[in-house]
C-alpha cells in the first residue's frame, strides 16, 4: 500500500515536472522567436534609407554613373551624399523593427565553369506593422558583388527577367564575357525580387538563383584557383502607394554579418606556368613538322609527275 502511494506520488512528481518543463519550453520558445528576430536584425549600423527618384531603377547603376566605380558596402556614405529630408528621417524612425532578414544561406550548385549561386533567406515582418507595408509597394533587392574570377552574362539574366524568374536585374562593371581574370575588373549584380508580404504572412522565404560563369583564372602551380564569395547586401525598395511622391526608398536594415559565415568558394582549373617552356616548344615544333611534311609531299608529288610525264 505504501509502495503504491510512493509510486503514485513519484508519478505525479514526474508528470508535474513534465508539465513544468513543457510550460518552460513554451515560454522560452515564444521568447526565443522574438529574440531571434531581434538578434538577426541586430544592427551593425542603424537603419539606412536612401531616397532616390523612382526613375532610378538601380542603386548600383546610380552609383556607377556618379562615381565610375562599383558600389562597395558604404551605404551610409551614399545616404549622406544623397541627403535626407524630414520625410525620410521620419521614415527611418518608423521602420524600426518593421522587417528584417534572417537565416541567410548560400551555396553553389553545379559543376565546372558554369554554376549557379543560390541565396536563401527569410523576410520577417512584424505583425503590427503590416499596415505600413500595405501602403507601400516593396521589392527585395539583392546586391551581389562578384569577385574578379567570375562574371554574370547580362543577356542570360535578361532572359530570366523575361521568364519572370526575377523582377529586374542589372549587371554593372566589367561585363566582358571573353577576357581572362587577369585582364578583367570587378562587377556587381543587382537583382530585384517580388515580395509576398501581401499574403499577410509573417515570414516569407526568398530564393535567388544567379547563374554565373568562371573566367580563365591567372596561372597557378596548384592547378586550381580559389574564388571566394562575399556576403550579399539585402535591401528593400519601397514606393508609397498613398502619397503622390515619385520617390522610392532604398532601405538597408542593418544586417549582421556574424550570423552566418558561409565560406563559399569555387575551384576553377587553371594553367600551370611550369608547363610553359615544354608546351610552347612542342607546339611550335609540331606546327613546323606538320608544315614541312605538307610542303615535302607537295614537292615530291610534282617531282614524281614530272618524271612520269617526261
Amino acid at each position: 500500500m505504501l509502495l503504491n502511494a510512493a509510486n503514485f506520488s513519484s508519478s505525479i512528481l514526474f508528470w508535474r515536472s513534465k508539465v513544468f518543463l513543457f510550460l518552460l519550453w513554451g515560454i522560452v520558445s515564444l521568447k526565443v522567436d522574438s529574440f531571434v528576430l531581434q538578434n538577426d536584425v541586430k544592427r551593425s549600423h542603424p537603419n539606412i534609407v536612401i531616397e532616390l527618384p523612382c526613375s532610378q531603377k538601380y542603386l548600383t547603376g546610380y552609383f556607377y554613373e556618379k562615381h565610375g566605380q562599383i558600389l562597395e558596402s558604404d551605404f551610409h556614405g551614399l545616404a549622406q551624399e544623397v541627403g535626407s529630408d524630414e520625410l525620410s528621417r521620419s521614415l527611418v524612425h518608423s521602420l524600426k523593427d518593421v522587417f528584417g532578414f534572417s537565416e541567410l544561406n548560400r551555396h553553389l550548385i553545379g559543376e565546372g565553369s558554369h554554376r549557379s549561386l543560390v541565396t536563401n533567406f527569410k523576410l520577417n515582418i512584424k505583425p503590427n506593422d503590416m499596415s505600413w507595408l500595405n501602403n507601400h509597394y516593396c521589392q527585395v533587392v539583392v546586391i551581389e558583388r562578384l569577385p574578379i574570377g567570375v562574371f554574370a552574362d547580362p543577356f542570360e539574366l535578361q532572359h530570366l527577367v523575361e521568364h519572370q524568374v526575377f523582377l529586374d536585374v542589372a549587371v554593372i562593371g566589367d561585363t566582358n564575357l571573353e577576357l581572362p581574370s587577369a585582364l578583367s575588373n570587378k562587377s556587381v549584380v543587382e537583382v530585384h525580387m517580388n515580395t509576398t508580404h501581401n499574403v499577410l504572412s509573417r515570414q516569407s522565404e526568398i530564393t535567388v538563383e544567379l547563374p554565373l560563369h568562371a573566367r580563365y583564372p591567372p596561372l597557378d602551380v596548384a592547378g586550381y584557383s580559389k574564388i571566394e564569395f562575399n556576403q550579399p547586401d539585402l535591401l528593400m525598395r519601397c514606393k508609397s502607394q498613398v502619397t503622390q511622391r515619385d520617390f522610392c526608398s532604398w532601405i538597408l536594415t542593418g544586417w549582421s554579418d556574424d550570423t552566418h559565415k558561409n565560406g563559399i568558394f569555387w575551384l576553377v582549373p587553371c594553367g600551370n606556368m611550369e608547363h610553359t617552356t615544354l608546351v610552347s616548344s612542342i607546339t611550335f615544333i609540331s606546327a613546323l613538322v606538320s608544315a614541312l611534311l605538307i610542303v615535302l609531299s607537295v614537292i615530291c608529288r610534282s617531282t614524281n609527275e614530272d618524271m612520269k610525264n617526261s
Partner: protein
Amino acid sequence: MEVRYTDIDYFVFSDAAALVATGKSPFERSTYRYSPLLAFLLIPNLILHQSWGKLLFSSADLLVGLFVDIILKLRSVPETLRLLSVAVWLFNPFTFTIGTRGNCEPIVCAMILWIIICIMNGKVIQAAFWYGLVVHFRIYPIIYALPFVLVLNNQHARPRECILKKGSPRSGVTDPSSRARVVKPSTTSWKQLFCPWDLLRSNITINSFLFGLISGSIFFFCTALFFKLYGWEFLNEGLLYHLTRTDPRHNFSIYFYHIYLHHQHKFSLVEKLISFLPQLMVQLALIFRFAADLPFCLFLQTVAFVAFNKVITAQYFVWFFCLLPLILPWSSMKLKWKGLICISLWMGSQLHWLLWGYILEFKGQNVFIQLWLASLLFLAANTVILLMVIHHHKFSRVFSPSLSAPDSTDTKKLD
C-alpha cells in the same frame, strides 16, 4: 540543362540589326564583330519575322548546292558523280544545321563559289566585285588572292577566249570515253617560284590587273564607308579583331594553351612570327603547286589555313566543306576504305578533343595538358588527311593555256 538550338551569334546579329534600324551603330552590341552589312541584311528580322535571317542563310545554303552543280557541269563531270558531290554538301549534317542555327557562313560560301563560276566563265570584273565584297565580309578569303591572280594569268587569254579544260573524273564511273585527258601539270608556275622576275613579269596581265584593282577598290570603299559611319569601333571590332585575335580560352587550335600560358605578358615579335611561319610555308607551297586546279587549291588552302590558325572554332569547318564537293570527282580515293578512314580520323580526333573539353568546362577538372595533346592530335589528323587527299588527287587544270602562251609547249594531250 537547357541547350538552345539557335546559335548565340544569331541573337547578336538580331540585336545589331535592331540598333542599325534605329540609326545607331551595330557595334554597340557587345561581341558583334562582323561587317555592318550583315546587320543591314537582317533588318527584316524586326519588320517581317524573327527568323528572316535563318531563312536567308538556309537559302544561301541551297544556293551553294546549286553553284556546286554549275561548277561541276562546267567541268563536264558525269551526272551521277555530279549529283553525288552535290549531295555531299546538301546532306552533310554539319552544314545544313549551320544555316538553320543562324550562322552566316553559308552566305560567304555562296559568294566564294560564285566567284569561281565567274572566273571560269571569264567574267573577271564581276568576280573582282564579289571578291572585294567577300573579303570585306570575312577576312579569310584573302588567302585566295594569289591563286585567283595566278589562274587569271595562266590562261593568258582575254575573257572571250577562255577554253575550259575538261575534267578527268574518277575512273570506273559511268563514262570511260571521257576518262583521263591527262595533262602534264604545268611545272612552269612551280619553276617560277625560283625565278621571281619571271613571276612578276608574267603576272601582270590585263585580267589580273583588273581583278586586283577592282577587288581592292571595293574593299577599300566598303572599309572607308563604314569607317565614316561608325568610326574606330568598326575598324577595331570588325577588322583588326580578326587579324590580332588571340583567344586564351580553349579551342581546337594547338596554340590555345601556349596563348593562355602567356596571356599575362605580351608576346614578343619573334613569337608572333614563329607561329605565322608554318602557315605561310604551307600556303605558298600549295598555291604555287596547285593554283591551276583552282577548286583543289582553294580547298587545300582552306583546310591548312584552319588547321594552322591560332583560333579554331567549329564554324570554320564550313569554309572547306563547301569546296569539298568540287574536288571529289577527281579523287581516286574510294569511300571504302580510305575515304572512311579519313572521315573517321577527322571526326574521331574532334570527338576526342570535345571529350576533354567537356571534362574541363563542365566537370571542372584540370585537364589542360590532355586537352592540349588532343589538339595536337587534331592537327596531326588534319595533316594526314591533307597528305592523303593530295596523294589521291588527279590534278587537272581549270583552263588550258592558249597557244600563244609561252608555256603551251609543256602541255600534252593524250587522246
